[in-house]
């Protein structure tokens, strides 16, 4: 073979390998080499699903029309979005939109640009309010000394969610004490245990429909299940495991979702479950960017991670489950906080239900829907950013608005998991009060 022929064949082989490698990396979601194709480090919000290009991209690597809204629409709707895209459709906005077309999420939130990515995935300078609100200082003289990069960074305003920050709301919550007189969370709708329960320890194994015979579980599993919420609700083994021929020892999350759809749907929208939503394997703490415990590095995050099989102890799910993985300053400080002391009092029965504060109280908040039903939001990211989202959903069940705003603005207090009092003060309430008073005075003058 001539020298040229050899070179040609080597070239052909190498090209073939390169082609295969590129195709494999692009098409196989689990390809280890896929990260080589990433145009830049993915943001905190999306790195878990960065290998699933098709979650956001079209086949030609454009951005899908509803890539963002597919996951974030419900949250935006709930937030009563102050700058919803529909507010800008009027054709006279065209000049404003030429500077920044805020109807597109990507105008402010681009992906794979780590050097430009700020808090909340913002990829434009933080003084963006300037583009439309240049004249704010004329309309609100009180704002004269404020810089435009402080509007949304100082705890005063948010771009999307201002449910707890608008003037009238601030005015309605002046003069509130740091701790309200009757701090109380919404209570979950638990079945009336007394009414449906006989003495669970008196139940016999043969009452457990469909359970397999002769295993260790015969003693342990029914024992765990006895007295659980499933027991009281009449949910027996067969409901999750199937019966007879179709019995399966492994229970998929779909079984849980069959009844707990709201919980499951919100779970897969948050950081705990978003990989499942994208059709990937469940998240493991070892892949997280936040500090996690080494011992939990390889544990897959499913319903069972927090709720365990059979016992379904929500009190475990509310604290211990979190701390089996989370290892950051805020999480580790929790057990030294007054919130935790209150939680212990509650589970010991020394304080009323709904007065203790667990991890779940803030991060998996109890929400009350339009029909007055309480449910637990399982997207633990839902109220995290911007953290003022927590004000109404969480803090204000127990604390005054002013104290809550100040606390959420004090980053070092957050790191200490709220041990102590806020050292920051955001004057929003005072400003709203003075604004309404000034208007009132003007009105009285003839």
């Amino acid at each position, binding site marked *: 073979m001539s020298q040229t022929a050899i070179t040609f064949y080597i070239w052909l082989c190498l090209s073939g390998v390169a082609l295969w490698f590129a195709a494999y990396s692009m098409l196989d979601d689990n390809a280890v080499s896929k990260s080589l194709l990433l145009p830049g480090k993915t943001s905190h919000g999306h790195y878990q699903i960065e290998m699933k290009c098709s979650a956001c991209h079209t086949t030609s690597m454009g951005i899908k029309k509803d890539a963002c809204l597919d996951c974030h629409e419900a949250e935006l709707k709930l937030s009563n979005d102050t700058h919803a895209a529909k*507010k800008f*459709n*009027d*054709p006279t906005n065209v000049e404003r939109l030429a500077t920044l077309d805020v109807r597109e999420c990507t105008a402010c939130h681009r992906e794979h640009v780590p050097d430009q990515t700020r808090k909340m995935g913002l990829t434009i300078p933080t003084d963006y309010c300037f583009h439309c609100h240049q004249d704010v200082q004329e309309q609100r003289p009180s704002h004269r000394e404020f810089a435009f990069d402080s509007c949304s960074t100082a705890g005063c305003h948010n771009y999307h969610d201002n449910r707890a920050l608008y003037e*009238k709301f601030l005015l309605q919550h002046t003069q509130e004490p740091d701790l309200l007189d009757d701090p109380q969370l919404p209570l979950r709708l638990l079945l009336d245990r007394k009414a449906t329960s006989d003495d669970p320890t008196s139940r016999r194994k043969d009452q457990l429909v469909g359970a397999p015979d002769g295993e260790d579980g015969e003693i342990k599993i029914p024992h765990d299940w006895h007295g659980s919420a499933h027991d009281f609700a009449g949910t027996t083994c067969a409901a999750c495991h199937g019966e007879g021929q179709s019995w399966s020892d492994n229970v998929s999350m779909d079984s849980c979702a069959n009844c707990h759809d709201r919980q499951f749907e919100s779970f897969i929208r948050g950081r705990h479950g978003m990989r499942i939503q994208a059709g990937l394997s469940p998240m493991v703490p070892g892949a997280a960017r936040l500090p996690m415990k080494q011992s939990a590095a390889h544990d897959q995050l499913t319903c069972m991670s927090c709720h365990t099989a059979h016992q379904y102890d929500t009190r475990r799910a509310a604290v211990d489950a979190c701390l089996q993985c989370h290892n950051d300053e805020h999480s580790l400080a929790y057990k030294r906080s007054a919130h935790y002391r209150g939680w212990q009092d509650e589970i010991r029965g020394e304080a009323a239900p709904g007065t203790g504060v667990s991890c779940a109280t803030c991060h998996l908040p109890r929400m009350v829907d339009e029909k007055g039903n309480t449910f637990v939001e399982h997207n633990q990211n839902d109220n995290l950013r911007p953290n003022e989202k927590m004000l109404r959903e969480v803090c204000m069940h127990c604390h005054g608005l002013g104290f809550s705003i100040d606390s959420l603005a004090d980053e070092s207090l957050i790191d200490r998991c709220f041990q102590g009092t806020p050292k920051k003060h955001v004057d929003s309430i005072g400003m709203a009060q003075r604004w309404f008073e000034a208007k009132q005075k003007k009105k009285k003058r003839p």
Partner: protein
Amino acid sequence: MKKLWSLRACLPVALMATFLSVLVGCGGGTGGNSEANGKPGIPHKQFADAVHAVMMADRTVYAQHVVDRLKAQESVVKPDEYWHDEDGTIPLPAQMFRMGAELVSENEEAGFSYSLKSKWPLNEQNKANSDLEVAGLDYVTANPEENFYGEEELAGVNYYTAVYADVAVAGACSNCHNSHANRGDDYPEFKTGDVMGGVIIRIPMR
């Protein structure tokens, strides 16, 4: 990218239109688009007047048969600007109007847009923006009995724009507006009969 999409979307629509007009032999256009298939459609002015009539009828019915009725019955339910947050409240007529306009703006089939605006808005979103809007509002303020019609170009698109006076028909209009905290320093003292703003209807001319 948008352009490309619209080209791609237009192709089947154009094909279908050709097919239909050959097959059926007729195709009366609606809206202001009279050139699409060579058949006369509704003139822009007539279309604007028609949809304005519907808007005002709906607004009147809401005011008379919902808002006033609740009041007459001394119901605890009342219109409130903060209806999102307050129990037992429903949206103000102006908010109903704006929310309807926002829905229409999201509907690609609608083919036109509208708004309730003023030179002195309580909600910044309702501020008269374009020169033609300001001219139109000035005109109907000076001539409340007449409407204003004009054409304008916004970002390369020509629009047929109609402006209709919005008059303080009751004391409640001016009372609420005059005492609202959002009123600017240059806010007029409105009284019954004054033009407070206007309905603006805008039709793209292709």
